[in-house]
């Protein structure tokens, strides 16, 4: 009997998710043993044509990481979707848009202007910009088209499962592959991490007071952090209360507040909005002026509450000017 075929693909991402696969260490060998990796552009030399040559549904499972923001990414995502029985959105970007999703605060023009013109380190007197096609003699070179809006994978193609995390822990991946091999998969659409906010498993949970009454929001780089005490109780904005657990409290154990990469729990529609109302109600003042001052301590509200989830949130993106306007 031939081994089940598994594929890995990446879209708009940083490469960290690929690293998580490699981080399986001995585990990766077991996986390699049990399955046949048929496509993994980051690590192994396969071509698009190899995938095109496969029959539809021939791949047992494909793990896609990264968000979708270009024509090429969509084309590849649609291709592997067709060829795979099970498609897993792997990591925060694939699941929620992730860090690249913050580009939805701008439009393409603004992004390009910044990247190719206005940053301090840019030297580009001719204002050269990437183009989707270029003719050189008889040859036409093409590049994929980049879009205004970043999407999570499930906003463009049908997704069967989600593995959260920036990046996901090797354990979550190993568990998913094992469940796949054993045919013990949960209902379609499930997020493969416990449906419970981080606070529940947090090693510091007993030190969390009932009334936080936050008087000042502190930023981690500017203060010493007590390694035992609840971070919110110390005034560090921790997204733990509004973030799905299953991450093994890695950041907390590293003495850093949770930044929310696992996204919300199942029943929450908008992680940022929920975090915002929870944190805002923990502000320890009834005086409007004082409240305003305390909240000034949250320097980048969107980047704090919607760091990973902007693209899939109710906000989704900055309003685009009406067509033709």
């Amino acid at each position: 009997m031939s081994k089940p075929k598994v594929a890995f693909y990446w879209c708009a991402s940083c490469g960290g998710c690929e690293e998580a696969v490699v981080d399986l260490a001995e585990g990766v060998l077991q996986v390699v043993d049990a399955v046949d990796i048929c496509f993994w552009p980051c690590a192994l030399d396969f071509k698009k044509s190899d995938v095109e040559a496969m029959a539809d549904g021939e791949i047992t499972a494909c793990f896609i990481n990264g968000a979708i923001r270009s024509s090429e990414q969509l084309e590849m995502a649609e291709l592997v979707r067709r060829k795979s029985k099970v498609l897993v959105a792997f990591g925060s970007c694939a699941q929620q848009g992730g860090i690249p999703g913050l580009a939805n605060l701008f439009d393409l023009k603004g992004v390009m202007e910044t990247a190719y013109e206005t940053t301090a380190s840019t030297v580009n007197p001719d204002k050269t910009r990437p183009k989707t096609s270029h003719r050189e003699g008889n040859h036409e070179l093409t590049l994929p088209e980049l879009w205004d809006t970043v999407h999570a994978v499930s906003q463009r193609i049908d997704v069967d499962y989600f593995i959260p995390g920036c990046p996901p822990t090797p354990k979550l991946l190993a568990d998913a592959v094992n469940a796949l091999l054993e045919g013990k998969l949960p209902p379609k659409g499930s997020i493969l991490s416990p449906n419970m906010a981080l606070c529940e498993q947090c090693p510091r949970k007993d030190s969390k007071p009932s009334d936080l009454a936050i008087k000042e929001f502190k930023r981690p780089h500017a203060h010493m952090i007590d390694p035992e005490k609840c971070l919110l109780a110390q005034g560090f904005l921790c997204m733990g209360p509004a973030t799905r657990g299953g991450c093994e409290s890695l950041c907390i154990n590293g003495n850093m507040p949770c930044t929310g990469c696992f996204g919300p729990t199942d029943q929450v529609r908008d992680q940022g909005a929920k975090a915002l109302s929870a944190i805002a109600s923990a502000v320890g003042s009834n005086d409007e002026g004082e409240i305003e001052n305390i909240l000034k301590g949250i320097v980048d509200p969107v980047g704090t509450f919607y760091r990973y989830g902007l693209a899939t949130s109710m906000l989704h993106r900055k309003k685009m000017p009406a067509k033709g306007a």
Partner: protein
Amino acid sequence: MRGNGDVRIGVYVCHCGSNIAATVDVEAVTRYAEELPNVALAREYKYMCSDPGQELIRKDIDENKLNRVIVAACSPLLHEHTFRHATEAAGLNAYYFQMVNIREHCSWVHDDRERATTKAKDLIRAATMRIVHHEALEPRKVAIRPEVLVVGGGVAGIQAALTLAAAGKHVYLVEKDATIGGHMAKFDKTFPTLDCSMCILAPKMTAVKASKNITLWTCSDVTRVEGYVGNFKVTVRRRPRYVIEDLCVGCSRCIDECLFKEGKFPDEWNLGLSKRKPVYIPFPQAVPPVALIDPAACIQLKTVKCKMTFVEACGERKAIDFDQKAEEKVIEVGAIIVATGFRAYDPTPLNRYGYGRLKDVYTALEVERLLNASGPTGGNLVRRSDNAKPKSVAILHCVGSRDENAHIYCSRVCCMYSLKLAHLIKEKTGAEVFNCYIDIRAFGKGYEEFYRRLMSEGVQFIRGKGAEVTDVAEELRERGKLVVSVEDTLLSRIRRIPVDMVVLAQALEAGADAAEVRRMFNISCSADGFFLEKHPKLAPVNTVADGVFLAGCCQGAKDIPDTVAQAGAAAGEALALIDAQFMMMEPNTASVTEDLCSGCRTCLPLCPYQAITRDEQKNKAVINEVLCKGCGTCVASCPSAAISQKLFTDAQIFSEIQGVMMHE
């Protein structure tokens, strides 16, 4: 399939006569609603709240097997109950009903027919999407406390307290001053009947003291109000009197033996027109008839160096207690009547009338005291400047009322009390009295008759608002006099009237602490600063806060007859509420789904009713549904969405929002 089978919605669009139909195309809305998903039928009707309107719903549930009902009509405040009832009458759970407000929220606030019609469609569409997620619910039965708090012991508070006490209810009467009685206890006589004010009020005051159903707390302030209709928790702070109320018999011996042989401190009761000692009783018929010590004046309290002769005078009673401290009382009541009265307008800012600058210019309230036999002069009306009886007096109406520089409203009683004062002044001094008025407002029973009587008594009436009072004489006859200039609009000429005394008929305005009181009791003020009734015609003693009622001048200037009538009405409303013993509450409580709660504690400190606790063992939040009032605060705060609220589930709210936003 949901709850009770395939969703079959009936939509009823009401014309409300022309209230809705004039601005919203009801027919178009109905036709639109018919086509919406899950809608089994849609009808329009002239008055949905009428019996035949309600009958439509009943019949359709029966014959057309509806299992959801939407009525698009007025505010749910008015008729939600009606239609829930109709829904229930046909055997469907009342909470499968949803009301859409296309009157107050639509037809009444728009004039563009086309857009108002679109808005009505949007609102109905939202309701059809929301109602899919409705479930059968049962209202909750909550016990009502039988006690009532009355705040303010003027004639309004007294009347309300006595009425409730007579019905066998326990009343806490909280008065900030040392005695009850309010303004009425300061007057000599009352218009139009000229009965002696204290002769009719004192029996009521003593009845308060005597009633075993009334707990009277003077020198007291309400400092905190928690809870809700039927179950208020109120904190009252009792300031120290330094005299033990239960031991003092009001014999006045301590006052006689006080180190100060004469009064030295301005007597508040007499508006500073006389002096009192550091230990005093506000006036002879004060209730309670108990002395009090002014800590800012008493030598013992200030320096501990008094010879204490007055303490000896009290003797074995030992009623004087210098160690008395402010005391907090926490009471639970089912209803609250606010009867904090008014403040008499201080005319100092109206510089042209010279009050505070010209000695013989008085406020009406001061003259009430001067005319009063128990007042500072024993009832002799004499001038501040020379202790002489005035031979001529001018009374200027509308001081601070009907005046853009002060209050634009009419204080309603000033005309009448000015007539009363004119009569009393004339009677006591024989002086010539001039009333300068804009017009005489003698609206009440026997009032016009009283006005005529005054005219026949030879009181002078000059139609014109007093323009100025000056002591600068222009002619010989004005020397040493106060001169009132006024345009006599009947003669069309400016007159200068030299008099010995001027009385300013000051306005009645909202209490100094009205804004604070308003916040504490969660009620509103109207633009004039007085407390706002729920409806000017149909709910004149109710407020926006259920279970909080208004009586007397705190709601607006009025005379004693109206005050007493209103106090009776407020007592009646309170009685109707507490006598029911139980009330039905919306089943809109919140609850925590244990499996979803991470124990993050976000919700714990937020509940205004302390309904949330933490199960230490399980590390989960728990909501006591008996205490929950369905405010939704915790629901919004829970970052795990582990708390859900009946009638306002996420699914219901999100689909409703989505419905509104789905503009074609």
